[in-house]
């Protein structure tokens, strides 16, 4: 019985990992005003998924609390933007998406991840 339960638990865990990390995404936060604050701390961007109006300029205001060098830059690969984030300071990044679509932003090593959803 234990063996069955443990194996079943393992299979469920794998299914959960696949579903949680690859099949579902964080709820997008809508950029209500022209500026949206993003906290960089503990290996994450918060919020990590931001809904913006396609083709309109939006200012993302990053605040880096994380002193780890991993958090040193934010890279919008598809948009050709690569900005250094000072520690304990605000850094504004002005972005205009070329159209509708999803544009990821990450740290240099792709470990901190977020995305802009342009609609």
């Amino acid at each position, binding site marked *: 019985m234990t063996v069955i339960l443990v194996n079943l638990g393992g299979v469920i865990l794998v299914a959960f990992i696949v579903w949680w990390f690859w099949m579902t995404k964080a709820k997008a936060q809508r950029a209500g005003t022209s500026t949206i604050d993003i906290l960089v701390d503990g290996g994450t961007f918060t919020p990590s998924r931001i809904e913006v109006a396609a083709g309109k300029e939006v200012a993302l205001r990053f605040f880096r609390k994380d*002193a780890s060098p991993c958090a040193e830059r934010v890279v919008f690969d598809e948009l050709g933007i690569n900005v250094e984030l000072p520690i304990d300071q605000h850094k504004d990044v002005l972005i205009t998406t070329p159209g509708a679509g999803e544009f990821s932003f990450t740290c240099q090593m792709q*470990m901190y991840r977020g995305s802009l959803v342009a609609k």
Partner: protein
Amino acid sequence: MKTTRLSLSGISCAGCVARVETALNNVDGVISATVNFAERTATVESDVPTEVLVKAIGDAGYEAAELRGADDESEKEAAEMAHYRKLLRKAFVAGSLGLPLFVFGMSGLLPDPEDSSGRLFWLAVGVATFGVLIYSGGHFFSGAWKSAKNHNANMDTLIALGTGTAWVFSMAIVAGPEWVPASARHAYFEAAAIILALINFGAALEMRARGKTSEAIKRLIGLQPKTARVIRSGVETDIAIELVVLDDTLRVRPGERIAVDGVIIDGHSSIDESMLTGEPVPVQKRPGDKVVAGTINKQGSFLFQARRIGKDTALAQIIEMVRVAQSSKPAIGRLADKVSAVFVPSVLIVAVGTFLAWFNFGPAEQATVLAIVATMTVLIIACPCALGLATPISIMVGVGKAAEFGALVRNGDALQQAGRLDTIILDKTGTVTEGKPSVTRIISAGSWSEEEILRWAASLEKGSEHPLAEAIVNASNDRQVPLLEAERFTAIAGRGVEASIEGRLVVLGSRHLMHERDIDIGAVEAAATTLTQKAQTPMFLAVAGQVVGVISVADGIKKDSGEAIRRLHGIGLRVVLLTGDNEATATAVAKEVGIDQVFAEVLPRDKADKVAELQRQGRRVGMVGDGINDAPALAQADVGFAIGTGTDVAIESADITLMRGSLHGVSDVIEISRKTVRNIKQNLFGAFVYNTLGIPVAAGVLFPLTGILLNPMIAGGAMAMSSLTVVSNANRLRFFKAKG
């Protein structure tokens, strides 16, 4: 809410102050805006990006630039040093608990967790380890949780799960040994503590090593002086560099570093620009010449007017360009990026699979404990950081190294491509040659003296802007030859000029022009041919249909062009000359410097076609030109090198900008590129091999053959070492020395 300080220019009265304040206050999100007329600065309290404020001021008809706050780099260094110390403290605290537990455990001196006294001891150890997990590993747990909430997983996830599993399992043994099979009753508190000690210690060492990778940028930032001597209302004062505003007059004394970009208005000096351009010879400057921030005034004191300040100076732009390039990734790193993006969830799945495999198929009496150990080891050994670091860290050092040699690389792709080139096309004027033609000989066809020929030629050319004309006019100025009045001046494109002087028709130009006008040049033709063979350009002067002489103009070959081209050959490149000049002159230049192939008489608009022609032949072509006239050819090439002298060169125009006027820069970049790409490959190979071998070994694939299962503490050490190795390998690039 933040405070932004802006320097203003164009402010001349109280009316201007009011207009700027109104413009700023009308921006949505601005709480308050005040302009200080004396300082010509604005202080704005707002939530608005600086760019928006600058634009609002621009729309009102003034110029503004952000005043930098405290020294960004020293602040960054202080924060990094604090983080470094914190990591060491965390490592020390974790090690202080883990190491004695490990040593006494190995010596068999620790009590049995199943005894009642032993259980109390282990309970205390469990609580202490919990404290270590919070102090030394808390950031991993909070990072893992935040990532998980955002549907992400990263390094923190793996470390938190690995050490968390060790603690939970160990506490389960202490709290209820009967829940766990007898053979599996071994506590792993020391493993959790030592893993955290090793990972924190590794991260601290990595941080130190990373600091060295950005030495080049620190050196550039170090060029910026902290103060400047400003003259306002006739009073000289030393002020902080941030307070210098546009149009300020600044004094520079011998040996001082220039604070901002500007134009000399009084005095002259020689200025050492080597720190930016790599050019060792100081440059003479006089009123009207530009000076750039960060360079050193050798002798003489002078006054200059500030034209570009703060983030607009050439130095600041170079720093920003190097920074951006250092953090861009070439194509070679894309695979690692794709793997990194799915790495952690994949490792989680492998960890679950490992647990199930051991649980189901492990040796009956040890299955559970081996399942736990192997799962923990898989989680700990996996290192996405080594993969993620492999490319950017080498690019960081490589781009910085190129900057030390006066070469600005636009991005990682350009650096990668440069090493793969097999053909280099060189523009002639200003690239192989100095780009400053001068008169070398004057030959008379008969009765006219040299001075007379020069007088008439210069009188004709003074209305022309052609470089050859400039050479003739300069020669007449040098010899103080008085000029005549020319009328009805006409330039004949690509051929020469004509005008009327003292009522006679005067023609100055090429052999073609003389033939077109049926002017017999027999008297000087042989001499002209000899000049052409010596890479000089002869220009025939005819007055009233009779040739009276030849003026020869030559653009001297740069002293080190021949040596630089030999160096290009030495690293396996074919060198091609591309010029609009005539075949004979181009061939003579090519012969003198050892160029393999010549494309002569190519119009500027056709240069890109020649580049494409070589590319169609399967060649990977680098084009070296001045960055302005050659822009299409530079864009067409696989890698475009803009070559210039000093920081005037258009740094926006090419993949790679050589601030030093020497062709050695091309070889420097290619050699750096090849070394960097080799370094990246070593890093990627190491990181892939580490993970693809390490994870299966951690999972226990060797166990059936050898009976050995990796200790999770060794996995922790290996993980910490893997990223450190990558960073240290990249640091080797710092020792690159050019062969030229």
